[in-house]
């Protein structure tokens, strides 16, 4: 059998199903056209206007979470495929691998709990610093971004050093 046959079959099948879905819904469905529905679908983003606008920041958070859990499953899946055979045949390393994965899962859940606890999953707020973290400094002077005004008495000297420094 030609090794490319399954790929061709997959392509044909995908084409048939997609065509069928589009055609059938076009034939059978009711047709009420609104401005929104006639606009091209752009995954939740304005279709018209500058293409350089910002994506909603939430998308990134979803992407981050998705990829982490996604990869966790990659590890679990490859372990699981072996583990099932091992438990059936009574392989000596089965228990060991089970506990290894338990340690992995424990760390995973710990990290998860930490993320939830620190509020990193809230879309609207970013992680903030509690004032108590500063200890004694909490009431200390906040230095403003403005440069400190130079007292008139030392102003000429200051100007001189600034000049010589450059």
């Amino acid at each position, binding site marked *: 059998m030609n090794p490319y046959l399954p790929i061709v079959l997959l392509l044909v099948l995908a084409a048939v199903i997609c065509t069928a879905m589009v055609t059938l819904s076009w034939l059978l469905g009711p047709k009420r056209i609104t401005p929104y529905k006639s606009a091209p679908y752009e995954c939740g983003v304005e279709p018209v206007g500058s293409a350089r606008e910002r994506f909603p920041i939430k998308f*990134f958070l979803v992407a981050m979470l998705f*990829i982490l859990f996604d990869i966790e499953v990659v*590890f679990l899946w490859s372990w699981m495929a072996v583990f099932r055979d091992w438990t059936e045949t009574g392989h000596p390393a089965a228990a060991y691998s089970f506990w290894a994965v338990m340690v992995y899962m424990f760390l995973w859940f710990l990290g998860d709990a930490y993320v939830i606890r620190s509020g990193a999953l809230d879309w609207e707020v970013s992680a903030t610093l509690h004032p108590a973290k500063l200890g004694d400094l909490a009431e200390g002077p906040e230095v403003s971004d403005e440069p400190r005004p130079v007292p008139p008495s030392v102003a000429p000297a200051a100007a001189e050093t600034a000049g010589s420094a450059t």
Partner: protein
Amino acid sequence: MEGIPLAAYLSLGAVMFAIGALGVVIRRNPIVIFMCIELMLNAANLTFLAFARYHETPLSRIIDPNDTYMTGQMAVIFVMAVAAAEVAIGLGIIMAIFRSREEIDVDKLNLLRG
């Protein structure tokens, strides 16, 4: 595995890697740069897998071919995990920049000069 020679996989990997490296150099959007880096990592993955599948090397006499085979497979899983961690961190950094300024063009990130 008849039909497709090893060189085909390696060439595809090399081309992917070159596209990724070129993209990192010439593109300006951090997210696109980032995608190019992912492309580079995936090119390495493809190379690992191709070599693992064709595991005949001059050293096959002293190294167990099964070991060679498993090493390549394992490498890919590890690299995927690394890539995922990089994605999470990278998106986090880009999100932090989004929050505090309007654009993320790398040419406009120019506070640090010297």
